């Protein structure tokens, strides 16, 4: 059965968003044949645009589907999204302004650009770039999965619609670069806030209040067999799993290429610090969305055949809302998928053009060629992700993305520890990366890639990425200490001055957040 009113609303909002995406190329007009403009919006985004951009970038459609899905399947454990997205911001507040400053000073577009200079090692930069690309690809695919879920719920065959949606997305990203998702993020976030605020009032009202919702959840948990219970309070056996996945996910999130793209596009350290203070508004939103998982239990939703527990939120909306508002909610999820998918593809493309193509294939390329390579690769990345979704069963992609987080966390020493610790040795970092990747991948194999939790023999089940980063850091510390004693610390090409804001005159230019416009053709 096709819900026509839902479909019409989704199409209308989709058209609006596409127009915005193309129009974005004229917004804050500059030469888009320069990678800093196409890929980072000229590093000119102030506090408010960055708030929308990072909010739209980090809180993806897949997150909005998966978090209530996990709560629906496992109960309280799924709420680890809350501590995860709370403790991440002190970390961002402390570390990202410094990474932003050195990148601004030295013109870095990607995290790997920084790694290359910090360690004077294009090999290590390549490892970090590949880690980022491999972790990002399934993440993009899952955004498509979010759209697919919506389309299937509306009752149309998703394949053709997906291809159309992605073709439009690919073309406006190609044309407008990071400006497109930055503008669309404003629409996305507006829709999501609207839907969530309405839903958190309306659905509990229909279900007889929060007291009744949790009463029903507790009743269901009490009669369920022990392993199938979905309690509303975390069980003691999962305490370590809960803390380690919250901390591990927080350590990994800002290492992802798309997160760094969002950070680098800010116009100043101050913008990042302010956002570290105000972005948790989205964490509140995500927590509320997590509660929809409990509401789905209370409303008697059953897992769907095609999408399993991940259909909980869509089925709940379908059951509770009048169909026109379900259309608005579905449009919010679909648009919510486009923003991160665009930024992720830009970030992966920049890694390819800067840290693979320029480094290993065509070192002499001009800035214009560099931007063109990024644009083309951003198209290919989306085609690849779409092929992924159409070819592979969804559970495989979700498992692959679970692995992505475990792999990504191993970039922590390269991208964050190296900001503060001078006496590191690059081969110790390579060894730490390899050790963390090996342990993480081994544990994932043991779990058949179906979960990111594993029992390593102490403290019960813990997050595999957390174990991986411990092993990684131990190797980095031991190896670097030995190297330092032998006088073999890797000095690299950076000095402390490179991490500091330039002197007064230039600092004033930053304050007004205006980087001198690039003269067209000067590249």
């Amino acid at each position: 059965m096709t819900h026509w009113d839902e479909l019409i609303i989704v199409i209308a909002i989709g058209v609006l968003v596409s127009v915005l995406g193309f129009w974005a190329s004229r917004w804050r007009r500059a030469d888009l044949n320069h990678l800093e403009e196409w890929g980072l919006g000229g590093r000119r985004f102030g506090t408010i645009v960055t708030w929308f951009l990072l909010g739209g970038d980090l809180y993806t459609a897949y997150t909005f589907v998966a978090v209530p899905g996990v709560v629906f399947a496992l109960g309280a454990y799924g709420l680890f999204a809350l501590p995860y997205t709370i403790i991440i911001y002190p970390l961002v507040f402390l570390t990202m302004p410094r990474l932003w400053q050195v990148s601004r000073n030295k013109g870095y577009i990607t995290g790997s650009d920084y790694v290359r200079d910090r360690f004077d090692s294009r090999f290590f930069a390549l490892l970090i770039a590949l880690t980022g690309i491999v972790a990002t690809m399934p993440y993009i695919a899952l955004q498509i999965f979010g759209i697919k879920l919506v389309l299937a719920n509306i009752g149309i065959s998703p394949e053709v619609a997906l291809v159309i949606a992605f073709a439009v997305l690919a073309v406006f990203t190609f044309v407008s670069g990071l400006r497109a998702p930055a503008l669309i993020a404003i629409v996305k976030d507006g829709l999501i806030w609207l839907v969530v605020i309405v839903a958190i009032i309306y659905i509990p009202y229909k279900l007889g209040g929060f007291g009744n919702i949790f009463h029903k959840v507790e009743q269901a948990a009490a009669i369920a067999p022990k392993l199938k219970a979905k309690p509303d309070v975390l069980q003691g056996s999962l305490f370590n799993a809960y803390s380690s996945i919250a901390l591990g996910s927080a350590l990994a999130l800002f290492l992802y290429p798309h997160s760094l793209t969002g950070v680098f596009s800010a116009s100043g350290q101050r913008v990042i610090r302010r956002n570290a203070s105000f972005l948790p508004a989205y964490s509140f939103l995500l927590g509320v969305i997590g509660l929809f998982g409990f509401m789905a239990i209370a409303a008697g939703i059953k897992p769907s055949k095609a999408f399993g527990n991940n259909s909980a939120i869509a089925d709940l909306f379908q059951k509770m809302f009048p169909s026109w508002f379900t259309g608005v909610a579905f449009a919010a999820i679909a648009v919510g998928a486009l923003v991160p998918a665009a930024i992720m593809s830009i970030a992966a493309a920049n890694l390819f053009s800067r840290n693979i193509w320029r480094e290993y294939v065509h070192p002499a390329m001009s800035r214009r060629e560099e931007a063109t390579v990024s644009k083309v690769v951003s198209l290919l990345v989306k085609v690849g992700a779409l092929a992924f979704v159409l070819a592979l069963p969804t559970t495989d992609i979700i498992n692959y993305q679970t692995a992505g987080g475990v792999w990504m966390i191993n970039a922590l020493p390269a991208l964050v520890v190296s900001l503060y610790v001078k006496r590191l040795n690059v081969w110790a970092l390579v060894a730490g990366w390899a050790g963390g990747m090996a342990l993480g991948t081994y544990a994932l194999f043991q779990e058949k890639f179906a979960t990111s939790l594993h029992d390593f023999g102490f403290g019960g089940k813990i997050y595999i990425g957390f174990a991986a980063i411990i092993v990684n850091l131990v190797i980095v510390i031991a190896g670097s200490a030995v190297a330092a004693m032998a006088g073999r610390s890797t000095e690299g090409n950076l000095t402390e001055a490179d991490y500091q804001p330039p002197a007064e005159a230039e600092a004033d230019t930053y304050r007004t957040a205006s980087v001198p416009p690039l003269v067209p053709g000067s590249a």
Partner: protein
Amino acid sequence: MPEPPDSDGRGRWARLLLIIPFVALLFPTLYAHAEPRLAGIPFFIWYQFLWVILGVGITGLVYALSRGSDRP
């Protein structure tokens, strides 16, 4: 307005406040209880929502205190 001369030091010490959310959230034994409930919501859940707000407060406070040392 000229920055107070000790703003650098104060900003640095203020950063220690950022440890508080980690302590409050990474030990679920502190808050994995059903009671006391708030409007029917178990303590485990509303406590974490409360910490979103407290976290904003703490980061915002550290930002305000360290603004002197936070040049551009």
